[in-house]
Every structure is written in C-alpha cells, then in structure tokens.
C-alpha cells in the first residue's frame, strides 16, 4: 500500500501546475545566469581575480562550464528551498483544504503510510528538481562554456581544482544539497500536518529558514551554542567539497545533523497526523 500511495502522491504532484512552476523558474534563472555570464562573464571574472593578478597569472579557459555551474549552484541553492516548499508544503494541508483528506483517510491505508508516502513523493520531486538543476548547471554550462579547471574563491583564499578532479565534487555536492533540500521538504510536510490551508505551511517553512539563516549569520555569542544544531547552518555544506583538502569531518557532521532533522520532522508529522481528528 505504501508503494501504491507513493505512486499516487507522485501522480498528484505531477498533475499540479505549481510543480512545473519550480522547474520552469529554475530553468529560466539558470538560462539567465548562463546568458549573463556569456555576455559579461569575463569582466565579472577579471573583477574577482584582479586582487590576485599581482602574484598570480591566469591562463587557459578560466570562464568555463565548471565555474559557471559553481556560480549557478551558489546563487540558486538559496532560492530552491522556496520552490521545494511550494510543492511539499501543501501535501497534507492541501488535502484538508480541498476536502480530499476525508476520502483518503477513510481508505484502507494507515495514517502512517499516508504521511510516509507523501514524504517519499516529496523526496522524489526534490530529487528531480536537483537533478534538473545539476543537468542545467553542469551539462548545459559545460556545453556553452567548455571544460576547464575550477577556480573557487572561499574564505581561505583561492582554490584551484583540476578539471579531472571536479566531477565527483559536483556529484557529492549535489548529494549533500539534496539532503539539505530534503530537510526543507520534511519541514514543510511536518508543518503541513498541523495546518488546514495550503499557504500557511509554505510561508511558515520560508519564515523558519529565514529566521534560522539570520540567527546563523549573526555574530552574537548567545547564538553560538545553537548554531551547529540549526539545519540552515548545514545547508551550504555542499561547498565543502570544493575545498582542498576536503574537510570530510565537517561534511559528515552536517550530514548527521540534516538526517536527524529529517527524522524529527517526519516523526512529528507522523505523531500529529496519527492523532488528528479529521473534521474538515
């Protein structure tokens, strides 16, 4: 029954126009970034590398597909949670708002299976979104700009990664980014179990992300003890794969924190939905 209802949930997601809104918006944004980089990328790049040019000389195809893919990821990973929440935020509450929850919950399927199938369908949608983003960012940018070594500017300075050493980093980076987005999906499904309208959980999810991101960026001692436990602190940990050497301990810590958040969010959703009187 779990498999059948997961399929059902995915059919519902695919039937909703808003599901394509996210993919469409993502496609458009990536095309705009690629177009902008094609038109003015060299001057942007020289502005960034200007401070290093007294000590370093850059040669070859610096503005390449890998760099553009990295820039795309950097720019969009902040916005993709909204696109995820837009679809997953009403997976339960949307059914309550529409009234279909009555029919769904009176079928021979347990409430636990209903929540889990929604979580699995939301995870599949999130995976498709990130795969599409990966395809456009890495494959499409690579096709437009060609390949080359990746130059990354981070807090430690300039990191130059060989072309042959980049693909696995993107792969692993996307995997961790997926886990981060999955946490957003679980959070919005969890909030959805408490609501009876579609928009509330979507707005609440974004409000929580914004709040946690602000707390994470504030340099205030009182917040230092909670920052490592906020899932938003770990949402950009995919970037760690573009350091040299890769700090696996920090990545594992992020992965564990994100998995724990997922378990908690799904657990709370299960607890709430299993006890909910369906009166809508």
């Amino acid at each position, binding site marked *: *029954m779990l498999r*059948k*209802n997961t*399929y*059902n949930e995915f*059919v*519902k997601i695919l*039937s*909703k*126009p808003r599901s394509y809104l996210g993919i469409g918006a993502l496609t458009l944004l990536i095309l705009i970034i690629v177009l902008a980089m094609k038109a003015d990328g060299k001057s942007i790049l020289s502005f960034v590398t200007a401070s290093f040019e007294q000590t370093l000389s850059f040669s070859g195809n610096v503005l390449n597909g890998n760099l553009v893919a990295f820039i795309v990821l950097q720019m969009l990973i902040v916005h993709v949670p909204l696109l995820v929440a837009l679809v997953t935020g009403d997976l339960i509450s949307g059914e309550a708002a*529409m*009234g*279909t929850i*009555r*029919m*769904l*919950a*009176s*079928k*021979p*399927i*347990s409430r636990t299976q209903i929540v889990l199938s929604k979580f699995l369908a939301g995870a599949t949608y999130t995976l498709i979104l990130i795969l599409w983003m990966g395809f456009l960012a890495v494959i499409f940018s690579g096709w437009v700009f060609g390949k080359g070594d990746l130059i990354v500017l981070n807090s430690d300075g300039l990191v130059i990664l060989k072309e042959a050493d980049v693909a696995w980093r993107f792969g692993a980076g996307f995997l961790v980014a997926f886990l981060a987005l999955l946490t957003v999906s679980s959070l919005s499904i969890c909030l959805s179990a408490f609501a009876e309208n579609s928009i509330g959980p979507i707005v609440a999810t974004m409000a929580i992300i914004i709040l946690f991101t602000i707390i994470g960026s504030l340099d205030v001692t009182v917040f230092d003890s909670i920052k490592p436990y906020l899932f938003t602190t770990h949402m950009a940990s995919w970037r760690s794969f573009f350091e040299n050497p890769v700090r696996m301990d920090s990545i594992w810590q992020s992965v564990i924190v994100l998995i724990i958040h997922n378990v908690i969010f799904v657990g709370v959703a299960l607890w709430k939905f299993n*006890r909910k*009187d*369906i*009166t809508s």
Partner: protein
Amino acid sequence: MESTIEVRNLAKRFGNFEAVKDVSFTVRKGDVFGFLGPNGAGKSTTIRCLLSLIRPNAGSIRLFGKDLQKERSAILSNVGSIIEKPDFYKYMSARKNLEVFARISGADVDASDIQKMLEFVGLGDRGAHKVSGFSHGMKQRLGIAQTLLHDPDLIVLDEPTTGLDPQGIVEVRNLILRLKNEQHKTILLSSHQLSEIELIANRMVIINKGTSIIEGEVAELLNSGELIVVFTLDDARRAADLVQEAFPQTKVKALSDGELEIITSGIEVPRINAYLTQQAFLVHAIEPKRKLEDYFMKIIAQ
C-alpha cells in the same frame, strides 16, 4: 440477522463540547438504514467515527463483526463512503481521480472497471474531463462511483444530496435505489431530506443532542401513531361529511374542493378508499402527508 454495523455507547468530545454523548444502533446486512437528526445532533461526528476519521473517546464500533480499532484496514477495504460533499483533485480528470482512489481501495480495479463505474453513474463520456469543470451533481455522482469502485458491501452516505438541485436529488436517489435493488448493498444514509429516508430506508435511528433516541423499522415507527392522508377526489366537501359519518373515529377535513385530509390509523385507509369508490366518488390519488417529518418533529420535541 447478521449485523453489518454495531455501535455501542459511542461518545466523542471536542474540548469541552460533547458532540456525541451516547449513540448506539445496529445496521443489519442488506438494510438501507436512515440516520436522522437535526443539525448539530452528532450525525457527521458519528459517521466520521465509523470511518476512523475521528477517534471516539468512549464506546465501541464493530463493522462486519470486527473491531474497527483493531482491524481498521480489513474493515475499510469493504466500505465505500461519501462524507457530505465528495471532494476530488480538481486538477485531475474524473478517470484519474478514480484511478488514484482505486489504487488504495484494497481491491484490484482495472481501467475497464473504472469505465463501467463512470457509465453506471452517467459520466461515461466525461471521464477525461477535469473535475474542476464538474457541477455539484456531477461530483456527487462521481463520489458514488468512487464509493463503488472496489465493490464494497457497506456504503456510508453522509448527506449525499446536500446542495443539489431537485434534479440532482432525484438522480442521487435513483442511484441509491439501484444500489439497493440491483446490487443489494447495505447502506447507511444520513440525510436532512426526511422524505428521502421515508422513500428509501427500511430501518432508521433518530439521534438528538448526541444521543440516539429511537431505532427501528421505518414502517413500524411511522405506523405506530396516526396517519395523515390526503385524498384527491371530486367534491371533497360532500365526501368529508360522508366519511366522518361512516368512520366516526377519524378526523376529516376538506382542504379544498378537490382535497380531503383524513387523520386515521393506517389500517383504515383502504376501507375509506373502498367506501368513497362505493359512493361513486372518483379518487384520483391517495398520498401520505409528510409522515416522517411529523414523526421526526414529535420525537425531537420530546
């Protein structure tokens, strides 16, 4: 007789509000069971408890002889239901909606079963149309198709005619009658349309303020008191005098030149008809006057 639903001392509280205090009733196999009560009596809450949408605070619910709490999935795979208005995924077609519900119905339902069901409810040519464009009546018929997809033995219909126009009400009523007569389903029917219950149901329970008041055969309950019958005939005023003289135990009143109201026991009606015919009156029609409504009001007022 084998019972399909057994509800005993059901109670449900929402905060401080007792929606259901003490409801008990039994629906037997093959019954069309009327579930009556005024607004706020606790009908919908009871029905939602039966479908495990609401968790009761006390009491027991057994369906097909099984405990609902313990064997929920096995029980619900044999139940079809419409709770108030049937809501569907508006962004999907009627067929797609039925496919979604069929997958989790616990039975093997294929595309031809879905098409047959759409045809059964008169939506055979609308399967590919999105539900967003459906009228309330069409949604109601699609709701009935959804309840029947997995061929359940028990059908629970909570206010299935709410919001329907007269034509829609007749369509739904005819569908229910077909379920009763052709498919011999056990049907629990909650409705505000008392005349509908009177026409369709063989047994009923009346609940008020969260408590079941009376339960039994519709005919027995309604015939337990006096019956109001309206005769349509020629020269009602002369007929009134004659009937009053011949049947002094009845109360007779000419409503107009062509309508005669008689309050009597059910057993006297054929005799009065025979007498009027014998007296050369042309009796065009004999109609009971909203019996259930009167009975219902009397019970509720007690």
